């Protein structure tokens, strides 16, 4: 519980409007998009300036209160859930785009700016910010950086990390850290910025972000390809890469996902097909034309059932939009969607599909699989009902066994969603006790009191 004098201090600092204490408000600020996770904050604050973020942190530090940063709550591993209560600090009102620097090709914005808003603002100036997580219409830049969000264009353009040039943040002791800058090269000291990206809000609270921009591709061609067997789709992915073609997008959906997405968007996706691949090649028109021919040839060679080419940019966008709804659309058919983020070296995609099928059968589960095939990043999603205890137990056994094999193949337990609360055990398996111990030491050096987003990524010392 937060004492009255702390509440009063926060109100004095932020005004009453930006300090939330009503139970009904608190109740809906203790979840994100991860199924089954919820915790009540004691108080929620909405700072409107970087200075206020620092002042809030100082109050938390002095009073020893847990403090958890939150954006739009679209995370998929529980990163913004306040499992020890305390303060939730919502950064949504820090939502200004501060600068678009056309000479240095950078954009600087506050942490609460919505990803798509930044994308659109730079696009207006003829520039391109590639990271495009599925939730880009809602997710915030701060959240993207903290989770190192990926997206549909990861294969060619990389993920959020590859675009972060500078960060300003508030550390748990209330000090300010400014790391990186607009210089293309920078090897001065430890690369704190790289440590902070993907740190899931456990090391500092970001207030300002500078990202790299690039010129947009001049042309693109989008393929929608259907397969009778999902393994053939996997094979197509590996063959395209082996032919030294890097498409900007290679997204896969299995039959269950195709059907759910079609239920929602009604754009004529083939309900009877085992899988589809959405492939996009982009760049200089001459290169695009050449690569498109090569991709088409490979798709024919591996035996794709049907190959379609989007007739215009509008159709290409609508296909990508449809793909972005995959996870939410799967939720149509069941109350609970348990989603995972297994990632393997992409040459192992066909084997991974076989494994998922085998395990789904073994544990009597309905599984819908979609993901970024080009990145080897799959989201096998168990369609279940959290009220059915036995089914939930089987779902967890399914993931246990899946991850065991994924790790054996040299894969990772999270490609882009982060560890958060949900996958602490799996991380420990991946990096071992030694790896966790080093992470803990890093965490301690930033946050000796253990107040910032406690209980995430790994068990804190007190718990273990």
């Amino acid at each position, binding site marked *: 519980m937060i004492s009255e004098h702390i509440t009063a201090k926060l109100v004095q600092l932020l005004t009453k409007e930006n300090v939330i204490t009503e139970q009904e408000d608190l109740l809906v600020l203790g979840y994100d998009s991860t199924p089954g996770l919820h915790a009540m904050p004691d108080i929620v604050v909405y700072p409107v300036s970087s200075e206020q973020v620092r002042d809030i942190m100082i109050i938390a530090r002095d009073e020893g209160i847990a403090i958890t940063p939150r954006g739009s709550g679209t995370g998929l591993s529980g990163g913004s859930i306040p499992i020890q209560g305390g303060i939730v600090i919502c950064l949504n009102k820090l939502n200004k785009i501060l600068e678009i620097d056309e000479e240095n090709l950078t954009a600087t914005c506050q942490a609460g700016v919505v990803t798509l808003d930044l994308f659109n603002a730079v696009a207006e100036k003829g520039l391109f910010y590639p990271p495009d997580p599925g939730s880009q219409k809602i997710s915030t830049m701060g959240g993207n950086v903290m989770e190192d969000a990926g997206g549909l264009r990861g294969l060619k353009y990389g993920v959020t990390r590859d675009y972060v040039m500078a960060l300003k943040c508030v550390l748990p002791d209330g000090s300010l850290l400014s790391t990186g800058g607009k210089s293309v090269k920078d090897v001065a000291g430890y690369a704190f910025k790289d440590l902070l990206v993907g740190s899931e809000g456990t090391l500092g609270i970001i207030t300002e972000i500078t990202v790299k921009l690039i010129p947009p591709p001049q042309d693109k061609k989008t393929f929608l390809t259907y397969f009778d067997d999902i393994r053939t789709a996997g094979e197509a992915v590996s063959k395209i890469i082996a032919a030294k073609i890097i498409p900007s997008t290679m997204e896969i959906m299995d039959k269950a996902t195709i059907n759910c997405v079609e239920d929602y968007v009604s754009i004529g996706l083939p309900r009877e097909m085992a899988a589809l691949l959405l492939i996009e090649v982009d760049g200089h028109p001459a290169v695009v034309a050449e690569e498109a021919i090569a991709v088409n040839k490979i798709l024919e060679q591996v035996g794709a059932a049907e190959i379609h080419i989007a007739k215009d940019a509008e159709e290409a966008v609508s296909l990508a939009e449809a793909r972005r709804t995959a996870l939410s659309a799967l939720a149509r058919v069941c*109350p609970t969607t348990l989603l995972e983020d297994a990632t393997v070296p992409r040459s192992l995609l066909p084997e991974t599909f076989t494994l998922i099928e085998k395990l789904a059968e073994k544990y009597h589960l309905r599984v819908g699989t979609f993901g970024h095939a080009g990145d080897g990043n799959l989201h096998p999603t168990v369609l279940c009902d959290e009220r059915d205890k036995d089914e939930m137990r089987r779902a967890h056994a399914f993931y246990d066994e899946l991850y065991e094999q994924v790790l054996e193949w040299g894969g990772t337990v999270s490609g882009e969603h982060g560890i958060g609360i949900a996958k602490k055990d799996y991380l420990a398996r991946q990096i071992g006790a030694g790896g966790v111990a080093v992470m803990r030491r890093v965490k301690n050096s930033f946050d000796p009191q253990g107040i910032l987003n406690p209980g995430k990524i790994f068990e804190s010392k007190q718990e273990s």
Partner: protein
Amino acid sequence: MTGTKQLGNFTPEDAPEYGDVLQCMRCGFCLPTCPTFSLTGRERSSPRGRVALARAVSEGKLEFNQAMKEEAYFCLDCRACTTACPSGVKAGEVMEICRAQAHQQQPLPKWQSVFRNFILQKMLPSPDLLETSMLPARLYQKLGIQWLVRNSKILKLAPAWIDKAEGMIPEMHQPLRQQIPQFSPATTEKRGTVAFFLGCVMTLMYAEVSRQTVRVLNHQGYDVITPKEQKCCGAPHLTEGDRETTRTLATHNLDLFMKLDVDAIVTDCAGCGSALKEYEEILAERQDHNRLEHFRHKIKDISEFLVEVGIRTEGLKPVNKVVTYHEPCHLCHAQGITKQPREAIQSIPGIELREMDESSWCCGSAATFSLKFTEESQKILDRKLNNVKKTEADVLITANPGCHLQLAWGLRQAEMPQPVLHLSELLGEATPD
């Protein structure tokens, strides 16, 4: 969506189904589409937040308290979130049901509940009473009292909603129901017969619009039957949480219209159309499923019907105007009708349809929302008017009386030049005598 056994802190009668609230996986796709969330930035005033509150109530973690009631009514029920939700969650419907819960769990003070029950259970279900009640309003205009009131600005002293309500009243004519013939024959080569569902607000406040609807249908080759015994569709009762009266009215209208041998039941009110199409769910436990489905398939919005049968354009008079179209929530979100009104507009020779930004964003009318939350409603309306302004269109077209009242009032207040026309009026302008 009617449960039979107690679900958490909901009462058994007219409670949300647990499955319907569990369906939300909290992805947040609804957030950028919600006018009230956009206005407040408050999670509990978002579809995701509202469903989470309803879930907490159904799991016994939250009482059905004042906040729950506030959110049930603060929701515009615009259904933009239903369109945006890939998971198929119907947050608007859940809130509508929560309004029924609010009346069970938090009864109004005596005088308010007597007034509410009189309006919902006596006046609205009785066309005669309803029409008589409008007499003072017509006299008020005819005798020049309106002119006096508006010019003296005396209502600036009253609560904001009274001033606004007075300002919204359009020029009123004799209610259409009393004058419209029960049978109105096709005026060109006959294609079929349709029944016309004449909404309460249409007959009372927009008689001229519905007159045009019938005229357009006749000219398109349809005999039109308008049964005098029809009653209110029950939509106001749904939005006010009186689902039982809706069922009574629905049963009456269902029996009445199913007796007619018609190709379709056409309406020019998006709110009515949406409610009529929901009879299938509302009466699910009381009526034969096939009969309800049959009825459901016959209900057509005027634009939906005309585009489906194909608009006869020969002989249409050119209308040389630039128009922009505001989509009523209960047409585009509740009924999924977005292409047909545009196609109908563009079938008129000479017309230019210039799209506004955010054409499917609510105008802030939302039944009684515009009077209950005058300030919030104004902000939502301003956003809409700004989008209208940017088009520089000559005319603003819409297809629902609630939007019509709100937009016409807003344009007048903002001293903008555009008149608001119902799609039927525009079609009427192009239809030769």
